[in-house]
């Protein structure tokens, strides 16, 4: 390994690290929003359909990783599309990932503003969170992954506790999920594709940059699939749970349906107003997502320029923070994210990797021909 690789990942990523990273990354802030809420009480079925589609995306990505062996996404692009084409593509991806990271920073600010810190200016929260992400990313891939691993038990425990509290408080009622599929599968599909691939399932594309560093590449495939399956199940369940507590009609009206559901928890006159703690747990997911995107962008930049990961992190951090102010308003931010981006993001998440996969297979066949 070269010195740069040493910095990026001095140690291989263990299978538990990979698993927890995929799970927390995919969870991100997703439970906070009720995705595909236009599908009404069937939103959770859309989530499941999206997860199934996401699994196909993941399979494409994993097979690409498998045929490319010891390469990460940047190297794949460079070796398939040549120095200039691949380089340009890699820069584009670095920008996309930085943009995704920026979106999360922005979400962070907005969410903090809307929940626990209504009087603090958004930029303070955003500055703090970008600085922490920069600190983590500058420490290298191992530190980011280990930090995620460290937080995983808390996040898992928190969600389990919340789910338990829901049931203790006798909040979920199945009738709110009925009628099931009243407008047929078509309506569900319409809301699931491609939006739910673009966010959150397809975002797993970012792991193309990290699978290379997994300890056992063969097992990494299985681990990734398992993690993805678990997190799909979790997200679908959370969606169904939220719907069954507050109902589809109310969920359409509020900004954070999950928090509304959590606020209904009331146990023994003591456990109430848990929404603040749940918000913090969501923040943790958001932080994981933002720092993994940041890290991905960082890894590409470091590979292309040859600078150390630390330098790249210090350059990228202010860029990401600064770029979050380019959007004129929160309305624009939401419009861009939930109306525009979700329509097209799947192209970079699936289509391009699929094309690269085809190219790789062709190239392999050609070289096999030549050698035989």
């Amino acid at each position, binding site marked *: 390994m070269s010195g740069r690789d040493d910095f990026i990942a001095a*140690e291989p990523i*263990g299978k*538990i*690290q990979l698993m*927890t990273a995929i799970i927390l990354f995919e969870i991100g802030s997703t439970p906070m929003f009720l995705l595909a809420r236009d599908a009404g009480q069937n939103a959770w079925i859309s989530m499941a359909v999206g997860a199934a589609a996401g699994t196909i995306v993941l399979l494409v990505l994993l097979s690409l990783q498998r045929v490319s062996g010891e390469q990460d996404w940047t190297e794949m692009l460079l070796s398939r599309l040549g120095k200039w084409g691949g380089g340009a593509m890699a820069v584009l991806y670095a920008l996309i990932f930085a943009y995704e990271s920026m979106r999360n920073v922005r979400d962070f600010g907005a969410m*903090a503003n809307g929940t*626990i*810190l209504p009087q*603090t200016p958004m930029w*303070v*929260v955003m500055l*703090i*969170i970008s600085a*922490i992400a920069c*600190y*983590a990313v500058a*420490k*290298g891939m191992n*530190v980011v992954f*280990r*930090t995620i*691993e*460290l*937080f995983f038990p808390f996040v898992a425990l928190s969600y389990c506790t919340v789910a338990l509290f829901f049931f203790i408080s006798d909040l979920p009622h199945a009738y709110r999920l009925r009628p099931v599929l009243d407008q047929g599968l078509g309506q569900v599909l319409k809301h699931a594709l491609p939006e739910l691939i673009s966010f959150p399932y397809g975002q797993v594309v970012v792991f193309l940059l990290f699978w290379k560093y997994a300890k056992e590449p063969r097992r990494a495939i299985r681990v990734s699939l398992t993690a993805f399956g678990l997190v799909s199940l979790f997200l679908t369940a959370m969606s169904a749970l939220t719907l069954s507590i507050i109902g589809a009609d109310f969920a359409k009206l509020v900004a954070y349906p999950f928090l509304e559901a959590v606020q209904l928890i009331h146990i023994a*006159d*003591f456990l*109430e*107003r848990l929404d*603040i*703690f749940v918000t*913090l747990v969501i*923040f*943790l997911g958001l*932080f994981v997502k933002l720092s993994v995107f940041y890290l991905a962008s960082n890894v590409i930049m470091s590979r292309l320029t040859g600078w150390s990961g630390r330098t790249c992190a210090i350059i990228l951090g202010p860029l990401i923070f600064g770029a979050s102010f380019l959007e004129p308003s929160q309305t624009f931010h939401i419009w861009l994210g939930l109306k525009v981006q979700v329509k097209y993001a799947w192209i970079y998440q699936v289509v391009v990797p699929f094309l690269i996969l085809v190219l790789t297979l062709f190239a392999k066949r050609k070289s096999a021909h030549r050698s035989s």
Partner: protein
Amino acid sequence: MVFRRKMRQAGTGSFAAGGPEAQPATPIYSAIERNIAWIENLVGHSADLVIRAVESPSSQNRVLILAYMDGLTDQTTINHHIVQAIQQQAIMGTTDNMDDWLTLLQRAIVSSGSIHSCAYLEHAVHAMLDGMCVIFVDQAGVALVAEASGGEQRGVEEPSTQGVLRGPQRSFTENIRTNASLVRRIIHSPDLRYEERLIGRRTRTRVGLLFMHGIIDDRILQTVRNRLAAIDIDGVLESGYIEEYIQEKTFTPFPTLMNTERPDAAAGALLEGQFAIMVDGTPFVLLGPVTFHKFFQSPEDYYQRFDIATFLRLIRYGGFVMSMLLPAVYIAVTTFHQETLPTLLLISLLGQREGIPLPALAEAFLMEMTFEVLREAGARMPRAIGPAISIVGALVLGQAAVQAGLVSPAMIIIVAFTAISNFVMPQLNIAIAARLIRFALMLAAGALGFFGIFAGILVIAVHVTSLKSFGVPYMAPLAPFVPASMRDTLLRSPLRSMRKRPVVLHPQDKERRPREEE
């Protein structure tokens, strides 16, 4: 600077400034008076240097001169085994050949524990300052160095800072050899290795490295040897000096080496594949590599029933979290997030704060600082004044502050509980980390409420996961997660089930005992 230049000119050589491994330059003169004059000049005619001439019946014409430091040597050894032995010896035969006679002197006459000859005056002086008796022989050109060290030493006593209810009640002392022997008395194995080197240009302190051959990972051993060898320092007064020089990262509140004054703790660490570093002159022995969790484990955990030990361990973790977070959470709740509290509790809290002139952050800072001052005073003041401090602390500062309406009673409870929970850690230095972080988190909570605490914890988490102790990740076995080590991290499983040594230390011999024996 001026002083140093003078020193260099005045000295008889570059002796004083040379490191422990400096090359000797002055061979021993054959004229005995020159040697004595050289030494006397070098130590500046110190009052505690004893020069004593002896004559031996076995070699009529020769003069022997003993040189030793009073107080570093044992008078009985010098009187009986060196002086009397030389003076009274007549039976063993005589010889005029110098070499033969020196051999005779070494083998048959002087009867102290060890004796060897040395050819350089520098070596002789060092030996003398280590408590040896140097024997100069006229016209010989060499000197004999006889073991005679002794003098006043503190005996083995009870551990004063790391007590246990059940377990051995003896502690390391200031004598490094006693300390090594205390470990040897626990591990009767030839695999227990002890390496010694001198560190400190002027103090020339003995520093011992103890490890279990065949268990400790070679890479760890090599790393610690290299780091010890690289230390270049004027003086080593305590193992803290060594700790600062060999730890990976200086700018962190978290200790990456552990210290103990308990031989059983050191022995346990060695058996797990850690090393121990002993420093002459301090009872605190360094243990490494350590992970975060080691600081929450007491040797007593293994002497007690596993269930109670597990419970106590969890209490310690809880105490750590409490002592870091409690005041910060109080500040966050009372200033930012009153709605998180159940209404009755909130009314009671706010009722207490009614009329308090200070904001919660200032109130908490004031009381925490007060406690820190009390604590430091308790550690520094002469023992006789102890009770006075507790009266001042408990009554005047606590009770009176509440009655005067300066702070709320709830705040006193918070501070008291924070303080007490800080003391449940078996290791003082991790408790100090929690104390420092507490203040940072209080500020963060005062500025941004729960989000501030959240951000603070994130920073700490990133920081601790980036730490390493001799190549071992600090947060292992939680991050990276090692399922096999979970038996002895947060929990303490029954001894029978802990068949393996900690994986994160990469021990050569992975198992404490083979499976067949089960």
